[in-house]
């Protein structure tokens, strides 16, 4: 990407923008959390729009936009179209942007009812009935999963962008990561419920390595079989409500988790 030249002929550094929608800011903080590499990033890209870090912004268009958060308001719908229009490459980061986030729990309930209960003037609140991922609204070039995203994977996405190559971000299950780092399977050896077999890799099998089950914060892998998997959770002690709850967290609106949790709920 760093091929453009400024009018004077000097090579132009690619511009980076970071955008926030409905989210907790944790994923964009991951960029600031790249302490050792942050200066290196700043040397290679112009961080042109990153309100979490600086209120100074430069106008677009931007070479690389990192988008955090889900679409939850009518204004978000307009804003994401603008972001898409001013971005050459749009990468969504985190469970909110890629799956709708934990706030997509609203998709199973009546938002008007919440508003009536919580707000004195619900008519002041302009919220959509659902929380949806960015890709439901505009074309997305790459999705980086996780709640929050993995720092190493974010660096990989940025460096891959700078080198003009595809990021090395596997889409298979977390089980690959457990086996490759020598973590004994918590389900097979201990009967611990674990979403690893249906969950997208990327965290490095953080939870199983600490002896607990994966809770799916990277969302579904690219090859799941939830109907075959859910009976395992039951075998290992989860009841229907537990199964619904474990599927309805940060990636509740991801298609595979959503379908499985709805199937389970029908059993209740």
């Amino acid at each position, binding site marked *: 990407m760093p091929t453009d030249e400024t009018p004077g002929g000097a090579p132009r550094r690619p511009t980076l923008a970071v955008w926030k929608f409905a989210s907790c800011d944790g994923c964009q903080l991951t960029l600031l959390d790249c302490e050792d590499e942050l200066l290196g990033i700043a040397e290679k890209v112009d961080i042109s729009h990153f309100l979490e870090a600086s209120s100074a912004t430069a106008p677009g268009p931007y070479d690389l936009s990192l988008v955090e958060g889900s679409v939850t308001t009518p204004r978000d719908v307009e804003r994401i179209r603008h972001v898409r229009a001013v971005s050459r490459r749009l990468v969504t980061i985190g469970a909110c942007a890629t799956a709708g986030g934990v706030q997509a729990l609203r998709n199973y309930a009546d938002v008007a009812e919440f508003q009536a209960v919580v707000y004195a003037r619900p008519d002041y609140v302009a919220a959509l009935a659902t929380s949806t991922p960015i890709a439901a609204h505009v074309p997305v070039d790459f999705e980086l999963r996780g709640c929050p995203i993995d720092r190493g994977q974010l660096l990989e996405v940025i460096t891959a962008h700078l080198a003009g190559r595809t990021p090395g971000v596997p889409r298979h299950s977390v089980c690959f990561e457990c086996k490759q780092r020598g973590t004994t399977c918590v389900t097979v050896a*201990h009967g611990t419920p674990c979403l690893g077999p249906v969950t997208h890799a990327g965290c490095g099998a953080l939870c199983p390595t600490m002896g607990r089950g994966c809770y799916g914060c990277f969302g579904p892998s690219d090859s799941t079989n939830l109907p075959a998997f859910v009976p395992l959770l039951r075998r290992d002690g989860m009841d229907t409500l537990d199964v619904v709850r474990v599927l309805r967290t940060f990636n509740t609106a991801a298609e595979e988790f959503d379908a499985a949790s709805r199937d389970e709920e029908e059993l209740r």
Partner: protein
Amino acid sequence: MTGCERDSADAVIDKDGMDALITILAARGRTVVGPTVRDGAIILAEISGGAELPYGWGVELEAGRYRLVARDDGAAFAHSAGPQSWKTFLHPPRVREWSADRDADGTIVVTADDTPVPAYAFLGVRPCDLRAIAVQDRVLTGGRYGDSAYRRRRDGAFLVAVECTEPGATCFCVSMETGPAVGPGYDLALTEVLDGDGHRFLVRAGSGEGAAVLAELPSRAADSATRSAARDRVAEAADRMGRTMPLVDLRTLMRETLDAERWNDVTSRCLTCGNCTMVCPTCFCTTVEDVTDLTGDHAERWRHWESCFDRDFTHVPTGPVRDSPRSRYRQWATHKLGTWYDQFGSSGCVGCGRCIVWCPVGIDITEEAHALNRERGRSTAQEAG
């Protein structure tokens, strides 16, 4: 260090002798890796003394289930295959193949990875796993394009085999003719014996270095009672296999059942999570990944384990070649039991049972083979009728 098979004198060592064995191997500059209890399982890890061996621990195995259980007899090797195999050390999950740096003048210098390879001593290699190592030797170094890093690790490794006296419920080495008695390829072979005469190990050397190590061990001459007890325990183990393969030519069975309905049945249960391939001691597939740093002046090529259950494993510009879970499970099973013969001259399965145990949903390759065999029988009968 292997390949020099000979009938050397056997000897008997006790637990102190086992401690001495570890000490002697370490003194020879070797990294000793053996079974040890960690995280509720008997794993393979670097050990520095006999006390780290799993004395008094066994395992209960079933499809999709592994439990560590205490044993009254204090045996060290009365457990079957654990969550890892020796490929973790000989064919590691992640290795850097080379790195490249761009100088100020734009010259690119590529440097092959020269991370020193440990001289391993593997303590407690089961007969099935000894065969698995031989299978990987053939795959990774047998052809024109040998894996030199594997060869270095392998050539430097000293193998202490332990005959199997306590097969698990998921074991079927007898069907695959890989155990429970030890085959060729070891430096030392042990058989653990526990009876009224005490806790001891019958030891034989299978190589020059094995004989040299044996000579250094505090041992006594083997007595006929120990020899016959060892023989009996291994023979009894052969009768206690938890699983069997159908008594047919598996290669033909795979070839003749490619369109079987059973593949749909197993696919409805398969999670395509890849665990079976990762725990399999012969699965060898890898992929490479090129990484660059922020400057773009430094690049590295890493090789890591890959699996035929990963959709991206067969990714080509139009998408994955084996997109359906059915095609992926079938590829794995038919390669393992069938086309492996065409490619490498042997079965790819050694009957260790790991794929059965560590499959979260407990898919059992022996059960699938039996089902395919039955389905083939039914369709043959229909054609005849």
